[in-house]
């Protein structure tokens, strides 16, 4: 045999071919010829390597270096560098998503490292069109053993003992199926292979056939001996031309080699097989329909019994096994049932191949032991969800299966667990869905598929799936009705129970499973016409507007920026938002996460554009609104929720008084957010506008102390409690009581109240400060501490990608020189003379997934370390401070120290005089959520008053009609989001001046032009 110094294994699977691997191979051949390396280097075209999304793939042996997304033009350089000079070409290597770490060798890439290859043991290693290469990897040895050393009974027993279950989806024990067929008496029997893989998103069988067709043939010959068959068929869908091509070659080669056909291996056993091409009906994957189709009839299922083992193809005993099942057989016979059963779970043995696809970084083919955690498949092998999105659910079993949501990422994937969670193993399609997928729309998609693929024979499937689709379609279009969910459930139960074949019986699964896990989403669609994923576009104008808690008319103000009509743009902002210049700086901009432009390149900088309007145009002048209503309303807390409610109520003619304990209004906007993010004059301006309407803000007045709650109740008709969440959570570690241990919000409040003392050093954190936590207030505290001259270390118990803080805040903190230690948790704070001297921390590692889909940090035993610090700021979360409330008020406070609301009106408490909203109800949340709560409270209070007075409901005055130009560019060129200019790092570290400088006119217009105007109705 010729020896080569290097083997280049270029993937020739359908995926890689589609991304151009044949052209790459061609240029490799030419380059190797040109450089006279043909005698030293061999090029092999293999079957699917599995890393499909990154194709064309090439692996260089003996080093095992893997090159990804190759293009023909990369080849000369690659040959020159790697094969002649021996230098690995860095730029063509794999980079780990998230960390960007370069991993040169295949086995070190987590995608491959976590896999256990049995069915796919030859993938990407052998040329599937050469039988010798298969034989060299123990190919046909299992068959030889079965044919020469084993009786049919022994073969059946071995397969039974292995615990192998049908990989087509139903999981029926393969050995048992064979046993029944073996017992059937008939001179003619058939061995059938089901390669009619039709689930959307599934491509396991195709890859096996393309990469290792002989493994399937070997399995079929063994099966033939086991049941006494002489003839077989492979039913392969015609849409798999490459698989059929390679199968044909494999059959011809096996016949030529005496491994198929008459007198196999001289044992006197005959077995011949042919390929039957399916015409693309999903139902033909059902066994009786498949057999009917081979018989030349319309592929429709027939009732069982009789079962195929008794009367199958042409009424003769037949077995039908899936490609993956058969590909396991050779090795089970060769290496024994015990070996096979050594991996897997109690009732699900061996490995399972999954086609991993959807919203996951590493789309591809993976083989893992049964019982591998879903989270391991999605995150470790799959590389997690791209673009920092959240995992929502994984669909298993395609249109017949169900979804497994985020709270079950720790679930071991085997037949039993998957069924328990309402999905099915299916043939192995595993579609990962991120937060941008709508549960109802997903159910609708799969139901559309099923009703389209229903053969039409039985009523429940034919008519039932169509009606379910109609209902689902209505729900996604905002036309859902009360009772629809229940009707869907009832129909699902009947269809599952009464349909003729597996297609119909499983068709309702995606609906049932999404109702089980995402019922709330269905209800939101039906009742509120809301799609949290912003998918169901019939219900909204644009995804950004739909996602904004106060439904700001984003497309309009962006269009008006483009038209340079900032006056009108500002009016649009104020239609829904009393704090546009604040939100232009500190909003968490959920709108941007759903921006359609983000699917192309990056979302529009909506937040910055909003700020651009408020920075560059005068605030519209505010006229006082006369008091026209007799009811007097008190608002407790001058934060964004309270002030928004006060403003809305004042506009409706109410006399509103806002009570604020501290000496400045603004709530967290003033006391929690540092001025380098939100300059004070900006905030003051917008609060002044609310005052100008006639709202009275009484500062330095604490309800419960300066004015008792009972007094307030007497003086005012309705009271809105919007007191926020201003108390830091305790860490519950020893030493927390020491001096210079602060809560995050307490520190920021203290700083804001006593700026002078802090600046002049009368108050000091000392030289070294540790901040505990990973949210925005931890970053705020850290950056303030830094500006006070401290060296700051943030201690966070998880990883960077898990931090709740805004990524741009984390980046800014790092730029300013703040050190962030990940995977650490505080153990105890040490001190002397009542003062902090050090903090001892525990190193953590990531364990199982928690219900939010993040990995739970667990201690690394014995790994402790101590940091010398002078202060500790614990910013691990806030809770409302309810000590002001009077227990006799009748207002309920729940176990999270929040107000309970929802007494007929969303924001009303158990006492009908009291309404509540904002962080005091939800716990710490965003500014925009507080503004939304304020709007809600104003609506509710007004509605309650009018109801009590028997007045008609409030009719909002018509909004000023602002003509919004619709300019849509013909072409869209990929352009990243405009960069926000920032103050120089060195300068800003010394100052509380605003860091972000704002867009200039050119940048803003350019950015506004990026908007795709998906609000347009054409």
């Amino acid at each position, binding site marked *: 045999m010729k020896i080569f110094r290097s083997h280049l294994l270029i993937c020739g699977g359908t995926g890689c071919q589609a991304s151009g691997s044949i052209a790459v191979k061609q240029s490799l051949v030419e380059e190797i010829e040109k450089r006279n390396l043909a005698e030293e280097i061999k090029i092999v075209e293999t079957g699917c390597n599995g890393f499909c999304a990154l194709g064309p793939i090439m692996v260089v042996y003996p080093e095992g270096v893997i090159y990804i997304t190759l293009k023909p033009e990369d080849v000369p350089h690659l040959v020159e560098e790697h094969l002649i000079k021996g230098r690995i070409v860095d730029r063509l290597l794999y980079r780990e998503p998230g960390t960007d770490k370069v991993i040169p060798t295949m086995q070190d890439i987590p995608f491959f490292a976590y896999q256990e290859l049995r069915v796919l043991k030859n993938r990407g290693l052998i040329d599937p069109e050469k039988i010798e290469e298969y034989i060299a990897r123990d190919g046909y040895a299992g068959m030889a053993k079965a044919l020469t050393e084993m009786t049919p009974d022994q073969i059946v027993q071995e397969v039974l003992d292995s615990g192998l279950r049908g990989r087509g989806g139903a999981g029926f024990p393969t050995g048992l199926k064979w046993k029944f067929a073996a017992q059937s008496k008939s001179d003619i029997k058939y061995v059938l292979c089901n390669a009619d893989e039709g689930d959307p998103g599934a491509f396991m069988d195709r890859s096996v056939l393309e990469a290792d067709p002989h493994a399937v043939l070997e399995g079929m010959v063994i099966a033939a001996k086991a049941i006494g068959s002489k003839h077989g068929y492979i039913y392969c869908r015609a849409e798999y031309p490459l698989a059929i091509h390679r199968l044909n070659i494999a059959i011809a080669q096996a016949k030529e080699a005496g491994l198929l056909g008459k007198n196999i291996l001289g044992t006197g056993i005959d077995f011949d097989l042919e390929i039957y091409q399916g015409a693309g009906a999903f139902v033909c994957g059902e066994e009786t329909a498949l057999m009917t189709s081979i018989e030349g009839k319309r592929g429709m299922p027939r009732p069982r019994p009789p079962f195929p083992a008794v009367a199958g193809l042409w009424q003769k005993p037949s077995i039908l096994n899936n490609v993956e099942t058969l590909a396991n057989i050779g090795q089970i016979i060769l290496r024994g049932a015990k070996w096979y059963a050594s991996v897997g779970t109690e009732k699900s043995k061996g490995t399972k191949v999954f086609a991993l696809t959807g919203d996951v970084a590493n789309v591809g083919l993976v083989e893992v032991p049964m019982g591998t955690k879903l989270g391991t498949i999605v995150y470790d092998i799959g590389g997690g969800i791209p673009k920092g999105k959240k995992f929502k659910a994984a669909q298993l079993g395609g249109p017949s299966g169900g979804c497994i949501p985020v709270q079950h990422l720790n679930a071991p994937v085997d037949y039993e667990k998957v069924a328990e969670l309402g999905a099915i193993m299916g043939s192995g399609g595993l579609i990962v869905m991120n937060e941008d997928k709508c549960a109802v729309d997903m159910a609708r998609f799969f139901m559309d598929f099923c009703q389209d693929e*229903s053969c039409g*024979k039985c*009523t*429940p499937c034919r*008519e*039932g799936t*169509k009606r379910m689709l109609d209902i689902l379609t209505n729900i996604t279009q905002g036309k859902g009705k009360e009772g629809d969910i229940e009707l869907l459930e009832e129909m699902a139960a009947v269809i*599952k129970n*009464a349909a*003729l074949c597996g297609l119909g019986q499983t068709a309702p699964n995606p609906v049932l499973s999404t109702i089980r896990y995402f019922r709330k989403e269905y209800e939101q669609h039906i009742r509120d016409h809301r799609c949290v994923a912003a998918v169901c576009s019939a219900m909204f104008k644009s995804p950004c507007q739909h996602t904004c808690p106060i439904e700001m008319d984003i497309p309009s103000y962006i269009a008006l920026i483009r038209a340079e009509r900032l006056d009108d743009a500002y009016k649009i902002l104020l239609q829904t938002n009393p704090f546009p210049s604040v939100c232009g700086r500190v909003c968490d901009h959920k709108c941007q996460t759903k921006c359609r432009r983000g699917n192309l390149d990056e979302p529009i900088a909506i937040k910055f554009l909003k700020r651009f309007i408020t920075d560059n145009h005068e605030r519209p002048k505010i006229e006082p609104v006369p008091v026209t209503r007799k009811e007097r309303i008190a608002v407790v807390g001058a934060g964004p929720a309270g002030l928004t409610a006060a403003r809305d109520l004042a506009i409706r003619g109410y006399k509103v008084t806002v009570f604020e304990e501290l000496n400045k209004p603004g709530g967290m906007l003033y006391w929690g957010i540092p001025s380098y993010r939100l300059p004070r004059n900006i905030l003051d301006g917008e609060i002044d506008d609310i005052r100008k309407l006639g709202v009275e803000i009484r500062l330095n007045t604490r309800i419960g102390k300066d004015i008792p709650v009972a007094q307030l109740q007497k003086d005012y008709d309705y009271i809105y409690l919007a007191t926020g969440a201003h108390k830091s959570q305790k860490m519950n570690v020893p030493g927390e009581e020491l001096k210079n241990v602060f809560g995050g919000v307490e520190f920021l409040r203290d700083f804001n109240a006593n700026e002078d003392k802090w600046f002049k050093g009368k108050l000091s954190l000392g030289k070294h400060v540790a901040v505990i936590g990973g949210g925005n207030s931890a970053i705020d505290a850290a950056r303030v501490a830094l500006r006070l001259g401290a060296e700051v270390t943030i201690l966070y118990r998880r990883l960077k990608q898990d931090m709740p803080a805004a990524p741009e805040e984390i980046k800014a903190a790092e730029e300013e020189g703040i050190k962030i230690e990940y995977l650490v948790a505080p153990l105890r704070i040490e001190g002397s003379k009542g003062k902090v001297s050090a903090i001892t921390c525990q190193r953590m590692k990531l364990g199982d997934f928690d219900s939010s889909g993040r990995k739970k940090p667990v201690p690394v035993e014995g790994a402790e370390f101590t940091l010398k610090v002078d202060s500790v700021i614990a910013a691990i979360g806030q809770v409302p401070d309810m000590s002001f409330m009077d227990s006799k008020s009748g207002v309920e406070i729940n176990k999270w120290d929040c107000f309970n609301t929802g007494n007929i009106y969303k924001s009303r408490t158990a006492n009908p005089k009291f309404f509540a909203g904002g962080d005091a109800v939800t716990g710490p949340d965003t500014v925009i959520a507080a503004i939304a709560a304020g709007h809600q409270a104003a609506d509710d209070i007004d509605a309650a008053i009018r109801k009590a007075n028997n007045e008609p409901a409030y009719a909002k005055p018509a909004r000023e009609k602002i003509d919004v130009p619709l300019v849509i560019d013909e072409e869209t060129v990929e352009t990243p989001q405009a960069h926000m200019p920032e103050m120089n790092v060195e300068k800003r570290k010394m100052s509380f001046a605003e860091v972000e400088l704002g867009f200039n006119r050119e940048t803003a217009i350019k950015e506004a032009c990026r908007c795709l105007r998906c609000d347009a109705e054409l």
Partner: protein
Amino acid sequence: MEKKRVPLTIDGKDVEAKAGQTILECARENGIFIPTLCHYEKTTNVGACRVCVVEVENARSLVASCCMPVSPGMIVRTNTEAVRSAQKMIVELLWSSGDHNCLTCEQNGACELQNLVYWLKIDKPRFEIEPPGYAIEDNNTMIQRDLNKCVLCGRCVRACNEIQVNEVLDFSMRGSRAKVGPAFDADYINSSCVFCGECLQVCPVGAITFKQAKFAGRPWELSKTRTTCTYCGVGCQMDVFTKDGKIIKISGNRDYGKPNEGSLCVKGRFGMDFIQHPDRLKKPLLRRNKNEELKEVSWDEATSFIAEKLAAIKKTGGADSIAGLASARCTNEENYLFQKFMRAVIGTNNVDHCARL
């Protein structure tokens, strides 16, 4: 030899079935009613409509009683809540998927879907009625097809393929767009259909109807008379339906058994116009001389004339100058007598029959 008996329980009643019998057959034998729609005796049990579902203890789901063979010790329940709710849902789905307007439907009163709706006590379907909107096929003189009323039970397909073996009908399309028809979506008249009308006879609803009978009489207004088909010597048994002494339509009847087992051909089923046609010959006509008009005469006169002429021809030209041709529309007995007459009276073997042509 009596087949092995299989003991089982249906609705709490201990019964015995023959091995290989279906649950439905056994229930019917024992007077237990299970509704059906697609089921049609002497054709394959397809289990398509799912109206006949029953509960079988320890089964994974409901089972279609029409195609589930009995097994020893089986415990069957035909009237549980799950069964009824499935049956109702199925019938509602069928109802709402078509144009089941009984006001004008020829099948009104003899419709199996109507009976199911009534038996299951369904006031109205929970789904909006959405007929598919197919054009009514009305371009032949015998069969009208309105696929908007089709419930896709497949009886016509089985009747065409299994009973008559004409192999004209099958399903096409998929899912809710599935429909029945000849190949390439052709009309009956443009297909290989021979208009035996078997499809019409088995259709449980008003999708395939007897065109000549349209608006001619409601099922309950018709009286039924058993008779033998007059078209050929097979002697097919059939029912003639009349109203006010007028024939409205003809149908086969499975209960009559041999020779036709309830099937008919195009002539027997649709060729009935002549019976009451004004042009029908009821008395002999005679033309004595060449250029003379035909004149109505009595039977005696007619037969005397024939006898005279035949005797004269035999005398001058010999017996073999006479040939006799009998009709397939005569009975076997009449044909026997005819050949006897030719051979024994005329004295020739020149006798033949139209069915041999």
